[in-house]
Every structure is written in structure tokens, then in C-alpha cells.
């Protein structure tokens, strides 16, 4: 393992000023399930590892039907998945958060970390996209908000500017008629990175049951998690029919720009993008109806 | 007399014959007998006076640990096979 110094940050100000002084070679540690592996393999270089998981703002977890969900960047998945209100209000998010590694990873890995790691295959990100999540980031210049679909800019790269850090995520309240679902394809049933992932959300007209709005996002079929606006827009003001869902899935499939690597082939991923989008939409609609 | 099964890849020396019955109380004697009848056989099976490391001799269904010194019964059946490992 490469050599580095370690410090525990107590406050946001402390961290921000530290990052402002010398952002290079500083790595922020929360759950460490990605960072420590990457440091060990030399895929990231650290001179100083700053442990931010004790900063109060990063551990915020508040959820109510009016304000929605505010999620500190360092909150581990397991804590979220065990939160009765969150699990009841956002089953579509829990679908994804519950898949970020096995139990041993769940206890440490944070949703914020999953986002900042900016893997094209990250499970949390498509789900956050279809839930209209926004990222609250802080730097010396102050605070700003970034829609989650704009947060990842390239494999391993985020929209964070030098010296900025992700503080929290905000997910608006679902509201009645909302339903969402995330699912992924992996060769085994655990211990794998998504070959392809798909998230979908719909807002149904409580009266007629027509689709008022919908969102579709894909994982592992592009350099970043992919928000396929067209696939959702197509469903606007349409009845939730087999045909409409199939067409939306076809649009998502067409939007996929996958590569072949050791985890899957381009053809397989493109195909799965369509299949998983359809399945995600069907489940989202089912959830929206109850 | 022991029956010796000629390995497929040695049948070029026996003109295709796949079994020979030869006198011999040990594997070594049997090989010497075959060599008399089919010159070149000994060199293919042996490295000096030892069986090649890549070959095992199977006598009456069992891999012999005595190899060249393996004692044969009058009814013995002798096979020369590639070495086999186990996990």
C-alpha cells in the first residue's frame, strides 16, 4: 500500500479550507470501499487521506413527505436501507442502495461515495436520476447545487471543481401517483458489478392512470450513468400500455452507447438496456398504482 | 505368457499389431522380448534402463510402482500409458 498521512476532519470548514490549500494528493475517505481498493492498486494517489465520515452535515439523514429526503454524503447504505420512513417513501432508491455490495460493504459504503467514485456502472446513480435528485456541493466559493444527472462527467470524474466536496443529496418528495424501480443485470446473484442497470420512474394521473411524466436512466452503457430523457418524455400523457412501454424501452436501447469489456459485450448491454428498461417501467408503474 | 498391449503410437513399429504375447517374468524382460521382435520399441519406451518419466506401466488394471521391476504373472496384461496426475 502506498504511503500517506491520515487525518480526521471535524467540520466542513476545516475540510474545505484544507482542500483549498492543497487539493492535489488529498483523498476524502468515507466508507473507503472504493478508495482503499484504488489506493492499494495505485489507481488513485494520496499524500493525505482525510476521513470525513465524522462531519455532522455529512451524516444528516432526514426524511418527510413535505421536504423529501436529505441524505448526507457519508451516510452508509445500510443505515438508509434500515430507515423505515425512507424505505416506505423511496422503494425505488432502496432497490439500488441495497445492491451496493454485500452486507459487509453496505455497512461502510456511502451513497455519496458511490456518486463521487463516478463509475459508469454505479447502482445508485440511475436511481437517483429518476428521483430528480440534486447534489449539494460546497467549496471556498460557497455552496451550489448540481442535478445528479450532471454530476458525473467521465469515468471516475465528477463535476466537482478543485477544492469542492459533495455535502449532501436532496431527493424531492415522491407525491401520490409516483412509482420508481431500479434493477441491474449481473452474471451471479451477488459480488458483481452491474453489466447493465436501468432505473425508471413514472408519475401517474391519480384519476385516469395515464402517465403524466416519466424518467429513465441507464447504467454501464456509456462513459457515465445515462439519463435518457427521450425515453421518459415519450411516455408523457400516454396510457401505460405494453406498446408504450415497449417503445420507451426501444428508445432507451437506442440511446445506449456500450462497450465490450471483461464484464460484458456491447451487444449484450445494448440488448439488456431495452429489457431492463421495460422491466423497470413495469415495476415502477405497478408501484405507482398502489 | 503375458499379453502386452502396444500403445497406438508405437504400432508403426509393429506394423499395426496392437497386442503381442511374449515371455517374461518382469516388465523389463517383456520389453526386451518385444525389442527382439520389433526393434526400436525399447528406445521408445525407455530412457536408458528406466521407463520414460512420461509413461506409466499398468499391469492387470493397476498402475505399477515397481515399473521395470514389476513382476508379471503368466496371465498378466500389460499397458503402457501416459502419466496421469490427480488434484
Amino acid at each position: 500500500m502506498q504511503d500517506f498521512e491520515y487525518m480526521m476532519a471535524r467540520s466542513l470548514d476545516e475540510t474545505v479550507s484544507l482542500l483549498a490549500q492543497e487539493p492535489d494528493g488529498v483523498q476524502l475517505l468515507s466508507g473507503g470501499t472504493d478508495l482503499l481498493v484504488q489506493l492499494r492498486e495505485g489507481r488513485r494517489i494520496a499524500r493525505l487521506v482525510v476521513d470525513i465520515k465524522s462531519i455532522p452535515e455529512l451524516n444528516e439523514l432526514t426524511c418527510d413527505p413535505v421536504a423529501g429526503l436529505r441524505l448526507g454524503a457519508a451516510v452508509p447504505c445500510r443505515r438508509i436501507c434500515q430507515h423505515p420512513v425512507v424505505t416506505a417513501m423511496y422503494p425505488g432508491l432502496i432497490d439500488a442502495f441495497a445492491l451496493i455490495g454485500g452486507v459487509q460493504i453496505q455497512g461502510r459504503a456511502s451513497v455519496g461515495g458511490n456518486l463521487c467514485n463516478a463509475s459508469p456502472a454505479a447502482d445508485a446513480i440511475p436511481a437517483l436520476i429518476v428521483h430528480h435528485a440534486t447534489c449539494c456541493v460546497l467549496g471556498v466559493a460557497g455552496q451550489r447545487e448540481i442535478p445528479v444527472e450532471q454530476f458525473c462527467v467521465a469515468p471516475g470524474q465528477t463535476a466537482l471543481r478543485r477544492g469542492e466536496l459533495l455535502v449532501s443529496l436532496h431527493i424531492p418528495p415522491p407525491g401520490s401517483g409516483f412509482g420508481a424501480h431500479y434493477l441491474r443485470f449481473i452474471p451471479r446473484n451477488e459480488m458483481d458489478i452491474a453489466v447493465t442497470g436501468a432505473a425508471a420512474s413514472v408519475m401517474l394521473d391519480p384519476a385516469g392512470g395515464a402517465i403524466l411524466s416519466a424518467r429513465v436512466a441507464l447504467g454501464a452503457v456509456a462513459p457515465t450513468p445515462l439519463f435518457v430523457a427521450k425515453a421518459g418524455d415519450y411516455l408523457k400523457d400516454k396510457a401505460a400500455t405494453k406498446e408504450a412501454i415497449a417503445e420507451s424501452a426501444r428508445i432507451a436501447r437506442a440511446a445506449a452507447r456500450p462497450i465490450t469489456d471483461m464484464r460484458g459485450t456491447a451487444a449484450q448491454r445494448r440488448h439488456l438496456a431495452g429489457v431492463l428498461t421495460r422491466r423497470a417501467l413495469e415495476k415502477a408503474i405497478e408501484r405507482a398504482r398502489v | 505368457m503375458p499379453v502386452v498391449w502396444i500403445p497406438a503410437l508405437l504400432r508403426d513399429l509393429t506394423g499395426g499389431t496392437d497386442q503381442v504375447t511374449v515371455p517374461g517374468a518382469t516388465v523389463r524382460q517383456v520389453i526386451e522380448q518385444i525389442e527382439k521382435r520389433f526393434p526400436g520399441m525399447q528406445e521408445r519406451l525407455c530412457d536408458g534402463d528406466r521407463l520414460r518419466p512420461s509413461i506409466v506401466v499398468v499391469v492387470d488394471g493397476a498402475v505399477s510402482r515397481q515399473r521395470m521391476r514389476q513382476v508379471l504373472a503368466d496371465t498378466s496384461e500389460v499397458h503402457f500409458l501416459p502419466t496421469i496426475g490427480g488434484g
Partner: protein
Amino acid sequence: MSRRVLIHARINEEDVEFLCEPRQSLLEVLRETLGLTGTKEGCSNGNCGACNVILDGVLVNSCLVLAVEIENKSVTTIEGIASPAGLHPLQQAFLAHTALQCGVCTPGFIVAAKALLDHNPHPTEPEVRRWLSGNLCRCTGYDKIVRAVLAVAGVPRPDISESHAPARDQGAA
């Protein structure tokens, strides 16, 4: 080399102090500094569960925790599972059900299973399989391991022929 750091922690109900480098994993310090070699290294990558320990009540891979992170925290390793009175029911069940062959993954499985039963005393077979899916075993095919955990959970040993369908990963396509 970076300055060594003095860490105070509670390990298996005992106060422990040790010096470590920031880059040392909890796994390395447990094994090489503290002599607690019951925690095994299988991959140092968070993929096998052989190094599982319970950190402040949470099951973790000790290869993915820096030793410096456990300051003022409490750790339970396989050496802390049995009580002075005797073996933990899980340890007894692993023996009774011959849920081990080579035994190198066994500490991780027992620690993981304890963490499961601590928060869900009566898991179903799918729940047990889901929970243990971060622990790899190459010898047993998991059959007897799952049975051992179910036995401690008070779930009757499932009749094999009525127990084919494995638990599905809920999110999996």
C-alpha cells in the same frame, strides 16, 4: 514512511493500544501487530469476506478499514465470539453440521452469521443466503454452512428435496 499513530480501541471486550502506519489496514494490524490471526486474508479487496469483523455493531471487511479508523471504536473478531463458558451456538453448529472443510473461510462466515443473528434471530434460508453472499467458500458448496446457521436460528433443517430454489437477489434481472 509516515509517522506511526497511537490508536486506542476495544477489541473483543478488552482495551487495546497499538501503533500503526496510516496505510495499514485493520486486517494487517489484527494479524501482524496484535497476533489475532483468526481473521483471515483471502483477497484484500473486499470480495471474499474471510477478514470479516464486527466494528461498532456493523459487519465489515477488515481489509477495507484503515487501522487508524478504529480509534475509540469496538471490534469483535472470531477470537471474541466464544464466551468463557464455551463455544458460541454458531461455532457448535458449524461443528455439528460439518460446515467446514479447509476452514480458512470459517471465521469470516461465523462472524458474518453472528452479525446476522444479532439483528435477525430467525432468518429464512433466502435471508441467510443473501446475508452470507459476501463470504466465499470454495470447499463446501455452502450447503452445510447454510444448514448450520438455520439450525442456530431455530429453523428446522430444511428437507433437501423441498429446498431447491435458491434466494434471488431482489434487484437482479
